[in-house]
C-alpha cells in the first residue's frame, strides 16, 4: 500500500467540510415535512457520509481490490440479514400486540 498515493490534508479538509454540511443538512431537513421521505433522505445522506469516510478517511479509495470486496461482502451480508428477516415480518399481518 505504501506505493499507492495517499490523500493530502487538503482533501481531508474537503471531506470534513462535506461531512459537516451533510450533518447540518440531515438536521435541517428533519424539520421539514417530506412525509414518508424524511427517513429516506436522512438515511441517504448518512450513506453518503459513510461512503466518504470509508473511501477517504479509511483510504479504501487507494486500497486493493481485496479490501473493496471485503467491505462489499460485509454490506451484502448485512443486507441479507435485514431483508430476509423483514421478508417474514412484512408478509404476515404484523404481530399484534
Amino acid at each position, binding site marked *: 500500500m505504501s506505493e499507492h498515493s495517499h490523500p493530502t490534508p487538503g482533501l481531508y479538509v474537503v471531506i470534513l467540510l462535506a461531512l459537516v454540511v451533510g450533518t447540518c443538512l440531515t438536521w435541517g431537513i428533519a424539520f421539514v415535512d417530506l412525509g414518508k421521505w424524511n427517513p429516506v433522505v436522512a438515511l441517504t445522506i448518512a450513506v453518503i457520509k459513510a461512503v466518504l469516510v470509508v473511501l477517504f478517511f479509511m483510504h479504501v479509495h487507494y486500497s486493493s481490490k481485496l479490501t473493496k470486496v471485503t467491505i462489499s461482502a460485509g454490506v451484502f451480508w448485512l443486507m441479507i440479514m435485514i431483508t430476509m428477516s423483514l421478508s417474514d415480518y412484512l*408478509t*404476515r*399481518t404484523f*404481530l*399484534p*400486540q
Partner: protein
Amino acid sequence: MQLNFPIFPEQASSMAGQVDALYLFLVLITTFFSLLIAILILYFAIKYRRTPGRQAEQIHGSTLLEIVWTVIPLGISMVIFVWGAVIYYHMERPPANPLEIYGVGKQWMWKFQHPGGQREINTLHVPTGRDVKVTLISQDVIHSFFVPAFRVKQDVLPNRYVFTWFKATQPGTYHLFCSQYCGTKHSGMVGQVVVMTPEDYASWLASGKAEGSLASLGEKAFQQYGCTTCHRPDSGARGPNLEGVYGRPIRLTDNRVVLADDNYIRESILEPNAKVVSGFQSIMPTFRGVVSEDEIIAITEYIKHLSPQQANPLNNRSTPTEIRDSEVPNIQQQNKQQNQQQPAQQTPQGKRPANPSGKKP
C-alpha cells in the same frame, strides 16, 4: 417393555396420508442414494484395493459428470420442495366452515374451549369427518401443539393467535404433545385427543356441563367490563359498532386497512390505541392485566356472533368506510374468505350457541 412396538405412527387425519406419502418418497430417495454411495464405496474399496504394484489411474475430473450430479439432485430436490410446499399450503389454508375450538397453553397444561362452552384440560374431544380449527395462544412461554397422529404441529405463541386445523378420520385416543421446550415439566405438558364419531361427539357435548355457550360467556364479560357503554349500534356511540365487524376490513384513522380478525380484536382490547378505527377518538383504556386470555377468547367469540339483522351481513362489502377489495393486503385475503363463512357456524347437533343477539347490545 412393549415388545410389539410400532414403528409407524397411526394415521388419524385427512392430512396424515399426504404427509406419509411424501415421507415414504423421501425414505425411498434416501435409501436409494445411501445404498448407492455405500455400495460404490465398498465396491471400489475392494475392487481397487492396494496390491503390490497396483497404480491408481489418474483422472482429473469431468465437467459433464459434475453437471449431471448437480442437475439430478437439483431436480429431485425441486420435486420435494414443490410437494412439501403443496402440503404445507394446504395445512396453512384453513377450510371453510370449520368447527372452531380455542386452546390456551400455559406452563404446563393445555386448556380447550368449545363453542358450546365446554371446557377441557389436557384433553380435546373432536368429531370425525369435520374440519376442526384450533386457535391457539399461550399465557407464558412458547409451547407447541403437536398431535403426531394428525401430523399437525404449531408453535403456540404468547400474545398472538395462531391456528392449526385437521380433519380427524379415525375414532380413537391419540397423543397430544407440547413439542417446544417450555421449562421444567415440558414432558408433562401432554394430553389426549379423543376422536369420536359425530354421534358420540354429540352425546359427549350434551353430557358436558357448560355454563352456557362461549359466546354467551363473552357477552357476560362484555357487559361486565362495560364495553357496551361505548360499543353501541346507535349513532352517538363513542366506540365503533361491533355488529358484523368480524372478518371485515377496517379502515383506520391513518388510512391503513386491517382485517378485523381474532388478533385484531385481541390487540384492540389490550392495546386499543394501536389501530383506531377511522372516525373515532382513541379514548379506550387498555384492558391489559384486567381481562384473562379466556375472557378475551370468549369476547372474541361473542363479537363473531354479533351480527346486524340482515341475512348475511358479513358478505356485505359496503361497509361504512367503503373499502374496496384491492385495498386489502393480499395476505389477508385468504383469512377473509375463511372468516366470511363464520355466521353459518353451528355445533354439530345443530344447536346454535345461545343467541346473544337476543339482547341487542
